[in-house]
């Protein structure tokens, strides 16, 4: 009877183990989406925060801090900020600020009751800095008033044209979406015809041995790390583009397209070739027996009947191009602008994530995850297209 329990155990065991994939996908969805949607649902902080430098004693709204902490959080609904601190012999510095919470323009949200003794500056969006000359050189006394950033509008995120994440805190990813789409489409237009020519040639015209050699070479092409493609592009393709078109810098959409086209070649060739090989010999024979030449048969019958596989290959190629990161960073120029010419610097979604993740802080970092979500949705759409095509193929 032990055997029976073991059998039962393994049945559940395998079922549990297989759930890992589902759980993993769920975890990916939850983590990436939770982080990526954060900027759109909540403010960065519940209330105003004060960061104090070089001030020994400070009264905020009547509460006196003798050992001033680095950071003071005000109540969420604070309408007034009253700052007082002793200043050398002159007595007391006083700043009274009215908070106009309904004001949308962050710069106008703080209204100073009378001309403050301090120098008011706006080092970055949502930050107001009050500065007084220091009692010692280089020890300027400063109070940074950090306003909470309101939830970011998803429309401005997707449709926004400006990406100024650090100082202005403007996060518009439309140029990057366009960059990704253009670079991938360009790579497809350049790479797919070559890939199909190669695949058809390998499937229909090459003898076994040369075909096996060509397949080995193409697998090798697939195995070269993407960083190498990127560097090859930077040293060979970028100067070539610069010289051919006589432009200031060769780091352009065109260079990215060429490198990506090279990188999707093996994907498209491999899948297209295997689906071409799968086209039944009897169809080719029928075509030949009707007096079509070998070339005509290859184009009209083999390519035609392998089309769902070819399309699946192309879509996989697109998803490789969309997801490619390291190579693109090196050759694309990465300027977050909307491009209208292939000879302009362009930036993709993936490049933005990989470039800025190390440096980003606060909302900027969350926004990079939001870009990940955009990318994710694009890829999911492509994937469902593949799935649908697969299903279509099974029917035929």
């Amino acid at each position: 009877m032990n055997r029976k329990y073991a059998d039962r155990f393994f049945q559940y065991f395998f079922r549990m183990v297989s759930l890992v994939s589902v759980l993993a996908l769920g975890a990916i969805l939850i983590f990436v989406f939770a982080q990526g949607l954060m900027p759109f649902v909540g403010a960065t902080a519940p209330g105003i925060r004060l960061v104090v430098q070089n001030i020994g004693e400070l009264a905020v709204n009547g509460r006196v801090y003798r050992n001033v902490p680095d950071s003071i959080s005000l109540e969420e609904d604070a309408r007034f900020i009253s700052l007082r601190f002793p200043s050398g012999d002159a007595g007391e510095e006083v700043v009274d600020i009215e908070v106009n919470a309904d004001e949308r323009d962050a710069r106008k949200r703080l209204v100073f009751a009378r001309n403050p003794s301090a120098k008011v500056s706006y080092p970055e969006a949502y930050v107001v800095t009050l500065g007084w000359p220091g009692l010692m050189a280089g020890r300027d006394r400063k109070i940074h008033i950090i306003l909470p950033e309101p939830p970011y509008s998803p429309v401005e995120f997707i449709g926004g044209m400006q990406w100024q994440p650090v100082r202005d805190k403007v996060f518009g990813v439309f140029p990057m979406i366009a960059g990704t789409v253009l670079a991938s489409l360009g790579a497809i237009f350049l790479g797919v015809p070559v890939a199909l020519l190669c695949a058809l040639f390998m499937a229909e015209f090459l003898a076994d041995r040369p075909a096996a050699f060509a397949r080995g070479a193409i697998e090798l092409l697939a195995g070269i790390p993407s960083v190498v493609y990127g560097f090859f592009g930077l040293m060979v393709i970028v100067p070539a583009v610069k010289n051919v078109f006589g432009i200031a810098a060769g780091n352009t959409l065109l260079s990215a397209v060429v490198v990506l086209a090279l990188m999707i070649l093996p994907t498209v060739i491999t899948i297209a070739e295997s689906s071409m090989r799968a086209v039944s010999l009897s169809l080719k024979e029928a075509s030949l027996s009707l007096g079509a030449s070998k070339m005509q048969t290859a184009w009209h019958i083999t390519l035609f009947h392998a089309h769902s596989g070819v399309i699946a290959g192309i879509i996989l190629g697109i998803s490789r191009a969309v997801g490619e990161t390291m190579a693109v960073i090196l050759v694309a120029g990465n300027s977050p602008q909307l491009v209208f010419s292939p000879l302009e610097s362009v930036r993709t979604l993936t490049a933005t994530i990989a470039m800025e993740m190390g440096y980003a802080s606060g909302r900027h970092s969350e926004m990079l995850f939001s870009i990940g979500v955009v990318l994710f949705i694009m890829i999911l759409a492509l994937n469902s297209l593949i799935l649908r095509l697969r299903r279509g193929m099974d029917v035929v």
Partner: protein
Amino acid sequence: MKRFLVAAFVGAFALSSVFAGGSGEAAGAQNTPYTIEVGGSTSVTPLMEKFAEAYAKVRPHVKVNINPTGSGDGIKNAGTLYQIGMSSRELTPAEQGQGFRVETVAIDGIAVIVNSANPVGSLSVEQIRDIYTGAAGDWGQVSGSGKSGKIAVVSREAGSGTRGAFEELAGIKKLVAGANESTSTGAIKAGIAQNADAIGYISLGSLDASVKALAVGGVAASSANVVNGSYKLARPFILLSKADAHAESKAFLEWMLGPEGQAIVKTSWIPVK
């Protein structure tokens, strides 16, 4: 097959428990092996690597792990993931106020670089600002030495310490659209070395013969000129830690700020003490 699988599982568990055992927190005892995790700015990394190398001779049981990720990461994770965070820029207001111990360990100049074949040898701060904001788009507008042609502007990515410092020092509010953004010193150097029309900026400590450094306002980019204050493009290398850091990491920090550490700084950068 079953035996094979079972063996594989057991092996995996054994392996992981060994790993887990090995990672146990080092006790306070003097010579227990200890690993200090350091992370942050890529610009500070070459200096930190030299520190780590020298420190390995001073205290062989202490290992310094360096994660060159970026200033933002270094500041964000100082005191948590990294005992010591590295930054190549001043902290932004929002990053301040988290109870960090902030120490400037060195000063680094920012060299404005062009291709070796470029006849331009000097630019004023204003000209640099014009180039980076797009007011001047052609070498003819700034060179005065017969060089012409569109300028290929190369910058660092948003959030980079080098970029932050450079933009602040040169007074650049908004980068010209179409400027290339590179993630790293090496990519900028390689790009400029093969593009006669390009201009970029890198850490003075990473400067080599593959590119040419411009004088800024007539002052050559050199450590001596940074020290005497005549070369304006300079920024601090900052190390961040928390008060409750491990004794070993505190000791390492003191050592870097002490004479031995500062002697190492002197090799390519400007010491602070």
